[in-house]
């Protein structure tokens, strides 16, 4: 049963035609990965779903609801949360406040418990709880961004390169967290990754994006074995 459906969307930056008709869907409970080279349009796809760069053509639907032209904060309320690329933590808020911002739209009573969960998963964040996040290292900020995403508890989480710039050990931790979210919380995930190998490892299905178009799609296992993809994205 498809939770998020993207149907033939076109997105422009001024004259630049960044997305040239992209269609994809993510089923309830799935991890779907979106891979592609630099400038392929991965971030733009996520931003179009989130309403930051709305599509000029095509539709985005969440369950039965058309969210194509909704304002970003309403899309979040509808259940689609994005953790943007390049950390984008609020540097002038403390670590704890950043995590609280992750749970901004939540009204359930589980926020405190989830905070403790995040701190357990990333003990470094606990140590820095009341420190301004801008004073933390890049990797720590990336952890915080992941923690903030964990706090959101959305129906579908869009992750844009969550492992970028992390040491191998931490990359592993991030992917563990992704799997945990999916298995334990049942969160549906659309994952954008440069690290295609790891991404296809955890994903059920994948899409390959090139110059604003989908060139391949299929179950993760199949893509992992596709020669063209191995050459282009999995480093031979």
């Amino acid at each position, binding site marked *: 049963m498809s939770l998020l459906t993207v149907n033939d969307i076109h997105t422009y930056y001024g004259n630049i035609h960044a997305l040239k008709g992209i269609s994809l869907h993510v089923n309830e409970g799935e991890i779907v990965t979106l891979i592609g080279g630099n400038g392929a349009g991965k971030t733009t796809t996520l931003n179009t779903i989130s309403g930051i760069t709305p599509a000029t053509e095509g539709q985005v639907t969440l369950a039965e609801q058309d969210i194509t032209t909704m304002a*970003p*904060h309403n899309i979040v309320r509808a259940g689609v949360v994005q953790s943007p690329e390049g950390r*984008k933590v609020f540097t*002038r808020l403390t670590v704890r406040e950043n995590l609280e911002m992750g749970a*901004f739209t939540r009204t359930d009573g589980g926020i405190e418990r989830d905070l403790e969960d995040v701190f357990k998963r990333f003990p470094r964040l606990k140590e820095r709880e009341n420190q*301004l996040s801008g004073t933390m290292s890049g990797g720590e900020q990336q952890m915080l961004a992941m923690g903030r995403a964990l706090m959101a508890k959305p129906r579908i989480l869009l992750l844009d390169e969550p492992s970028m710039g992390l040491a191998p050990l931490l990359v592993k931790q991030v992917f563990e967290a992704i799997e945990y979210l999916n298995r334990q919380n049942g969160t549906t995930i659309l994952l954008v990754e440069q690290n295609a190998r790891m991404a296809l490892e955890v994903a059920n299905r994948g899409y390959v994006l090139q110059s604003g178009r989908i060139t391949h799609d299929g179950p993760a296992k199949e893509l992992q074995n596709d020669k063209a993809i191995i050459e282009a994205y999995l480093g031979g």
Partner: protein
Amino acid sequence: MQETTDSGPSGSKSRPKRALSFLRVQNAYAFIGLVLIVIFAWVFFVIEIEPQFYLQEGERARYAWDTFISQFIIGLAQGSIYALIALGYTLVYGILFMINFAHGEVFMAGAYIGFFAINAAEQSGFLESQTALAILLTMGVAVMGSVIVAILLERIAYRPLRGAPRLVPLITAIGASITLQQLFLRLFGSSPRTYPRISLFVGQGMWGCEPVDGTTVCEGIDLISKSYDVLIFNQEVRIRPFFFVILFVSLLLMSALWFFIQRTKTGKAMRAVAEDKDTASLMGINVDRTIVITFMLGAALAGAGAVLFALYNRQVTPFMGFIPGIKAFTAAVLGGIGNVPGAMFGGLFLGVAESVFPSALGLPNQLKDVVAFGLLIVFMIFRPTGIFGEVLSEKKA
């Protein structure tokens, strides 16, 4: 927001001169302390040491401690009002990187609307019977008036221009400022309106009773209008308790604002929006709404400040927002625009400087505006980031 002082090596790359190098002290609170010490040392020199060299026997120096103390307190009162207005500039700048030059008129609107409220209260006798309550209600009405003007301003003048080059909303702000002045001029005329003179007595019996016409009257002290001769540091000075009321109420309001920004969810959302609007919206924060709230907060402080100002100086005109407006803007820049404690300290500092410096430097009081804007220039050269050190230029729009 105050912690930003220790981030960034502001100003260390290009230091034009070694003179006035104390102006570069990184920590804001150390800086404030240093400036105070320098001022006090200078005043001490002028009052205690310098006269010994030129004063004739039995002659009294023009400038003495009583003048200094009085002017310092007067400056604090004036500075409190600057600070309340300056916060409006700084909040909006912090979130939109835009200088809301119509903020002085938001202040003026509050004073006018408060005037009608307090006038009605006076006519109905309510002011006489329930003075404290009537003043609080006046403040409430003035705050609402300012807030409504600010909401309209944001909605009509600024929101459609969000994302336009920075100069565009600036010009619009100046236009909005003139429009508001002219609107109030046309509506209410150019003759000044005066707030009633109000007495609010507290502490009856604490200061002794006096027999008047056969009965004993225990007046207490009038918090608003009367002034009293008191001894401060052994100097007889004339004090109007309202000086301290202004200071106290302003500090209270500023603490409330600080609490709101630091502790409440909306306050945190404001800070998140100030830093990165797109990411904030990805958290589900309604950016437009948060911006409106920011305008409302600034306006509420200006409205409350307007009533304090009008109870203090009594005179209300359509142009009254202009001078406090530019002074408060100066204060916001001195404090470090975009920075909340900066606006607070900047306002108090400017008020005191304006009041104390001309006499302490042996200049005519006429030059107080020169002193104020001169300070601005000194800061622009030696500490362009203001007291609390946010860099003005390297802001993402």
